[in-house]
């Protein structure tokens, strides 16, 4: 009689038993205007097969030409990741047959990558406070993306069992950067957090460098997660490679689920098969793909249609001088300047609002107010429309103007929100919206006193309470006045006038 073995062991329990080693291969689509080896545009979402030419379709006789901007972006990434930039490197062909590959080989780099041996420090939160972990980088290289297959019919949406498949080669030839870490050991229970933090840091780095806008929902950053477990003191275990891990949350979940799966296998006396696994976003787990034990032989050899790349020291120095302040340095600086915690800053970063908040503060707005607008009201509006904050028509200058008007009492918070509503709706700039919507605070005492009297008549019992000293009841009258003035009154002023009118003083 055998007892059924559990399919998984809970994450923390598993990591009490085993030490994890992970490695990540991250592919990022570069934001160049044209493709890696031809002049076709790289814009996302075009009609299928409209952004193609003989080169990216791999037509017989066509030849690749390297995109200089892509090489520069790769070198800049390498420099930002503290890599050595090769004095001389080549492209290589990776040969395999697949219908999304126009040439049935991919132009990539193999044993001669452009950048190698770097590192990226990432910060993870622990019970004892933030902890910095150094992730070593094996290599950074360039390659071309494949086309995109859509499988129609069949149950799985995958190629096997499909009735037919459609190929869109618009994506074929889009420049990709591949960033490969060395094996990262010693993360213990933090392994999933470190993996996720590393990808988040890379994403921020790409954005800061301006080499990619990293729109994960468009598949412009894709991860392969390698993971193995070993008993403490034992050599590294057999790894699995989980593909199709395409969001930060998925990176974390892919690591967690693989820790849970492998630990159960190993605990039951089984062994981990070296294989490729496929991650499913919907269920948060991976399933077995092809076994790598009969490793695919890609027959790499130097690409004979291209000449080697030999970046000069002068060129590299020029590129080094274009590096912006990197995200980790910028975060430390802003935390200090704005006087906020790492957590508060993370809220800004995650909203994609860092630059906007910074510019807003430079425009004269208080840090708290700048952060409040961009990570609150405006972020909600952007999310509702499914666009980035930066794509809203609201600018840091708008916020500065609104805040100035709030400060001098011309607007209140509620009116300010209505102003932004108007700006977002395309009704013009701040002053135009105020004028056209008539949003100025009512500061005419006579008008306000009339409204107060009206409210007192309508609610005599409340009026009586206030007169008898229950000042806290004043809120009901103030509310009624605000309502009758459609929010355009200054609530504090209404309250003062009301109390004065009834001859009571604030307790």
């Amino acid at each position, binding site marked *: 009689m055998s007892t059924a073995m559990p399919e998984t062991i809970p994450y923390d329990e598993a990591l009490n038993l085993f030490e994890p080693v992970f490695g990540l291969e991250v592919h990022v689509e570069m934001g160049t205007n044209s493709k890696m080896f031809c002049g076709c545009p790289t814009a996302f979402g075009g009609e299928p097969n409209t952004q193609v030419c*003989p080169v990216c379709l791999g037509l*017989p*006789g*066509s030849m690749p030409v390297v995109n200089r901007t892509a090489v520069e972006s790769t070198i800049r990434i390498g420099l930002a990741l503290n890599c050595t930039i090769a004095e001389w490197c080549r492209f290589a062909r990776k*040969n395999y047959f697949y219908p999304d590959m126009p*040439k049935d080989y991919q132009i990539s780099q193999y044993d001669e990558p452009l950048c190698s041996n770097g590192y990226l420090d990432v910060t993870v939160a622990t019970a004892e406070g933030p902890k910095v972990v150094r992730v070593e980088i094996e290599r950074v290289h360039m390659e071309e993306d494949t086309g995109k297959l859509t499988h129609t019919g069949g149950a799985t949406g995958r190629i096997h069992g499909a009735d037919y498949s459609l190929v869109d080669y618009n994506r074929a030839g889009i420049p990709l950067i591949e960033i490969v870490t060395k094996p990262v050991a010693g993360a213990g229970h933090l392994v999933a957090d470190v993996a996720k933090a590393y990808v988040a840091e890379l994403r921020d780095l790409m954005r800061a460098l301006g080499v990619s806008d990293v729109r994960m929902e468009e598949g412009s950053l894709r991860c392969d997660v390698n993971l193995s477990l070993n008993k403490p003191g034992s050599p590294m275990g057999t790894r699995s490679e989980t593909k199709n891990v395409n969001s930060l949350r998925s990176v974390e979940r892919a690591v967690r689920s693989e820790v849970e799966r492998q630990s159960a296998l190993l605990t039951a006396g089984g062994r981990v098969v070296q294989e490729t696994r496929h991650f499913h976003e919907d269920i948060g787990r991976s399933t077995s793909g092809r076994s790598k034990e009969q490793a695919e032989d890609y027959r790499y050899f130097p690409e*004979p*249609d291209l000449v080697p790349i030999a970046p000069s020291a002068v060129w590299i120095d020029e590129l080094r001088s274009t590096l912006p302040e990197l995200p980790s340095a910028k975060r430390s600086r802003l935390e200090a300047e704005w006087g906020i915690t790492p957590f508060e800053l993370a809220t800004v970063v995650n909203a994609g609002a860092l630059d906007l908040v910074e510019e807003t503060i430079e425009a004269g707005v208080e840090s708290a107010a700048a952060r409040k607008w961009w990570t609150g009201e405006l972020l909600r509006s952007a999310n509702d429309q499914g666009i980035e904050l930066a794509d809203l028509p609201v600018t840091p200058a708008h916020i500065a103007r609104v805040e100035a008007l709030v400060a001098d009492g011309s607007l209140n918070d509620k009116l300010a929100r209505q102003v932004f509503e108007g700006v977002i709706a395309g009704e013009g700039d701040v002053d135009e919206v105020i004028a056209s919507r008539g949003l100025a605070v009512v500061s005419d005492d006579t008008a306000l006193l009339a409204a107060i009297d009206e409210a007192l008549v309508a609610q005599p019992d409340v009026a009586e309470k206030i007169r008898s000293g229950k000042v806290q009841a004043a809120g009901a009258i103030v509310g009624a006045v605000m309502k009758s003035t459609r929010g355009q009154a200054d609530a504090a002023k209404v309250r003062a006038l009301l109390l004065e009118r009834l001859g009571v003083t604030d307790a």
Partner: protein
Amino acid sequence: MPITGSDLTRQTAAVLAEAIRTGEASAVEVTQAHLDRISSVDDRVHAFLYVDAEAAIDSARSVDAKRSAGEVLGPLAGVPLALKDVLTMRGVPTTCGSRMLENWRPPYDSSVVERLRAADIVILGKTNMDEFAMGSSTEHSAYGPSHNPWDLDRIPGGSGGGSAAALAAFEAPLAIGTDTGGSIRQPAAVTGTVGVKPTYGGVPRYGLVALASSLDQAGPCARTVMDTALLHSIIAGYDPRDSTSINAPVPNVVAAAAKADVRGMRIGIVAELNGEGYQAGVAQRFRESLAILEHLGAEIVEVGCPSFEYALGAYYLILPSEASSNLARFDGMRYGLRVGDDGSHSVEQVMSLTREAGFGAEVKRRIMLGTYALSSGYYDAYYGSAQKVRTLIMRDFASAFESVDVLVSPTAPTTAFKIGEKVDDPLAMYLNDIATIPVNLAGNAAMSLPVGLAPEDGLPVGFQIMAPPMADDRLYLVGAALESALYDQWGHLLIEEAPAL
């Protein structure tokens, strides 16, 4: 040296161009004469896979119109040309001699075709070749072999046998070939015509359907050295669409052909390409040519290139390796042949069935060789070693060119062999290229020109001249001098002795 007689098809390209410029003949007349010649002989020669008479006449007419409008015409404007079927031409079938591309019409022009068009050269059609340029006889064409105009039972060489046969049959005065291991020079040798493999990178490869990217080079073919030079100067020069093309001025090959002077030059006989293994008549005409060059004022010396011994072996690892990758794209997915797409086969099966049906035996043989040579665990022993040999061969050339201006050898070991004689013996076929291959491995320039008939079979013999990279002009200095001396000796060009058909 004008070819006498009034038949327009027997003139040199230079003479035809001059006649068209002066109005002595119209481009339409010249083109029509060649189309008529094709109609009357090509059923026997089979040089062409495709002739577009209408398009050819149209472009000839536009040349005549330019002339009428007073435009200055280029040096070969209005002259007809035969294009090897391995170069793309917009809207015109480009089969590479393969079933795989039987109905493929490329949507773009190759660099070479763009330049031919810009020079107002009239493209008659596409010429036959061994499938994907793999072979030395055109017998590996999926559309049947071409025949040598000197003896229709014999091969016209390969892979560019169609282009060479078209020249020798007077179907065109100019042709374009491509040379990966001798595919311009060996056909030139066995058909009594002239062919040049320019320096690697000298003529852009954009639009040349790749066999082996690091070896392939398109080049000019004609019946005289000067015609070859004129065509060379039109197709050569940098094109940013080919990253391996050389961004430097093209050597002045036309001036060199006009100069035709070897006085004071040092000419090296490659010891390893002289001796055993050459047909008696080939060796004899080679020796006689050396004597002529010496008489013309050149100094003849012998130089050793010890690594040439390994050239054939290295070549048959590098070429198949690159070819196995270059030919992967013929998978039935996007263009060309597709077999098995009947709803009952998977995509892998369709790819496999298509490649099974679309490729001939020689292509499959080389794909398998290359796939093996690149395989993990064998790469270093095969592809890696072959690349080292390649470096050694470059060094042999470099050190030889320190002491001589050009190197020479017979172009091919034998004259044209009989159709069918070697088709089942790949090794015997490969040995045809023993003297031409080293140049491709090193990236040098080389020419073959006719130097007489072998006494034993009355068939043409080719003489090979090899120059350092970007010294293509030296080929023409030597070639034109030798051609001129032979012309004086015979009173005509060798090609005049070809049978009438």
